[in-house]
C-alpha cells in the first residue's frame, strides 16, 4: 500500500505511546492576535462545513477539562511568570490534544482549533522565553493541515478591541511592565505579538488573510482555502484507496496452472504458485 503523500506527523519528539498513523480527519487552525476576529470566523466556518455534511469539532485555548479553572485562577491572581505561564498553556494544550483533537481526527472529523501552539510561541517569546525551548516543549503537538492567520496592524486593532470590550490585563501584557497605562501597554504588547505572528508566518508557512476586511469577505477567503484543502485530501484518499485495489482492477486474473501445463515465465510479477496439486 502506498503511504499517504503527507502523513500526519508530530511537530517534534511526539508522544511515543500514541500512534497517529490512523488519523483520517483534518486539522485546521486559526491564528492571530487578541481581538482580531478569530472566533467569529471559526463559528461561521463551522456552520458552513456542517451544512455540507462534515463533522466538525471545535477546540479553543485554555478550554481543557483539566486546566481551564486553574488557568483562570492563576490569571486572576496575576502570579504567573514566563515559565509557569508557558507551561500552564502547554498542559492545557496537551490535555485537549489527547482528549479531544486526536480522538476526533481518528474518527474522521474536521477539527477547528481557535488558536494553536503558535499563540503559545508568540506569547512566551515576547515574555522572554527561549524560542527553541518553547518549540521543543510543544514537540508533542500535531502539525496542522492548514494554519489560517488573521493578519492585522496595531492601529486597526486598537479601536476594534476598544469597541468590543474592555482592555484586559493579560491582553494588554500588563504583566510585562511595559508601562502603567493600559492603552500604551496594549499597543506595545500587541505590536510585539503581531511581529512574532508575522515572523512565524514565514517560518511555518501560514496562509495570511487580511483581517482588516469585512467579516464576510474574510470568511469567503477562509472557505476557499478550506474547500481547496478538503478537496485535495479527498482526492488523495481516493488515490490511496485506488492504489490498494489496483491489482484487482488492472491485473488479469492470475492464471491457474492447469494440469501441470505452466506457461514459462509469462507473468514475472505474479509469484508462481508452489507446485503441487
Amino acid at each position, binding site marked *: 500500500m502506498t503511504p499517504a503523500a503527507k502523513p500526519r506527523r508530530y511537530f*517534534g*519528539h*511526539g*508522544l*511515543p*505511546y500514541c500512534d497517529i498513523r490512523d488519523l483520517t480527519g483534518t486539522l485546521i487552525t486559526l491564528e492571530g492576535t487578541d481581538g482580531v476576529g478569530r472566533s467569529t470566523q471559526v463559528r461561521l466556518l463551522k456552520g458552513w462545513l456542517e451544512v455540507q455534511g462534515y463533522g466538525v469539532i471545535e477546540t479553543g485555548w485554555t478550554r481543557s*477539562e*483539566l*486546566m481551564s*479553572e*486553574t488557568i483562570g*485562577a*492563576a490569571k486572576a491572581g496575576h*502570579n504567573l*511568570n*514566563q*515559565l*509557569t505561564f508557558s*507551561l*500552564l498553556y*502547554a*498542559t492545557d494544550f*496537551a*490535555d485537549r490534544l*489527547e*482528549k479531544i483533537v486526536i480522538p476526533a481526527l481518528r474518527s474522521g472529523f474536521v477539527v477547528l482549533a481557535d488558536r494553536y501552539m503558535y499563540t503559545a510561541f508568540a506569547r512566551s517569546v515576547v515574555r*522572554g*522565553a*527561549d524560542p527553541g*525551548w518553547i518549540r*521543543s*516543549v510543544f*514537540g*508533542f503537538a500535531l502539525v496542522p493541515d492548514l494554519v489560517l492567520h488573521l493578519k492585522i496592524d496595531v492601529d486597526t486593532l486598537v479601536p476594534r478591541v476598544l469597541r468590543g470590550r474592555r482592555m484586559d490585563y493579560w491582553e494588554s501584557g500588563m504583566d510585562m511592565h511595559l508601562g502603567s497605562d493600559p492603552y500604551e501597554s496594549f499597543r506595545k504588547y500587541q505590536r510585539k505579538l503581531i511581529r512574532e505572528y508575522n515572523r512565524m508566518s514565514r517560518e511555518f508557512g501560514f496562509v495570511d488573510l487580511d483581517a482588516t476586511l469585512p467579516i464576510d469577505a474574510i470568511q469567503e477567503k477562509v472557505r476557499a482555502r478550506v474547500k481547496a484543502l478538503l478537496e485535495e485530501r479527498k482526492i488523495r484518499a481516493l488515490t490511496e484507496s485506488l492504489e490498494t485495489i489496483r491489482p484487482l482492477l488492472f491485473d488479469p486474473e492470475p492464471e491457474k496452472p492447469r494440469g501441470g501445463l505452466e506457461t514459462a515465465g509469462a507473468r514475472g510479477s505474479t509469484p508462481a504458485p508452489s507446485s503441487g496439486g
Partner: protein
Amino acid sequence: MKSTKRNPPRKGKLIVVEGIDGSGKSTQVQLLLKWLEARGEQVFFTEWNSSELVRQATKRGKRKNLLTPSTFSLLHATDFADRLTYHILPYLKAGMTVLADRYIYTAFARDIARGVDPRWVRDLYSFAVPPDAVFYFRVPLEVATARILSTRSKIKFYEAGMDLGLSNDPVESFKLFQGRVLKEYDRMAPEYQFKVMDGTRSIDGQQQKVRAVVGKLYDSAPAAEAS
C-alpha cells in the same frame, strides 16, 4: 544545562536527594537538615509536587484519572517551575542552602517510565539550575516495595502506575512500575554523576557518608556570605 534565560547568579548550595519510593531518601534528608542547621547554616527545604499553582488541577486530574503521560509530566513541570521561581532561586541567590526532596531526575525517571520521549522531557526541564550534589539512594526493588507495602494500607492509582495498564492488581502494578523507574535512575546515575548511596545500609551509616560529602562542599568553597 541550558536555561531559557542565562542562569542567575547564585551563592547558595542546592543539594538534592533522589530514589524510588521506599528508598529512605526522605529520612536521610531530614537528618541532613538537622545537621546543617546545627552547624549554623541557613537551610530551606522543598518537596516535590507542592506548589499551590497547580495543586487543584493535579488533585482533580488524579482523582478523576484524567491524566495522560504528557499532561502528568507537564503538570509536574509547571509545579517545579513555580517552586523553582519562589522556593529555590531566591534562597540560592540569598546564599542559603536549599535541600530538595526530589528534583528533575524524579520527573525524568517517572515520565520516561510512563512512556514520554526522553529527549522531550529533558528539554522541558532545561530551565532548571544544576544542583551542587545529587544523592541517589539505591535499594533493590523488593526492599523498597516491602517498605512501602508494610506501611501503607493502599497504594494510589498513579503511584502504582495503574494508568499504564501494566496489571489490574495495584500491588503488582506498583512493583512493575517502580521497577521501570529504578531502571531509569540507574541509567541516569553516571550521566548526572549521582552520589550513589547503598540504601540497604544502616540509617546512621548512610548519614555519615552523606555528611562527609556535604561537609566537603562547604569546606572547598569560601563561605557563602563572602561573595
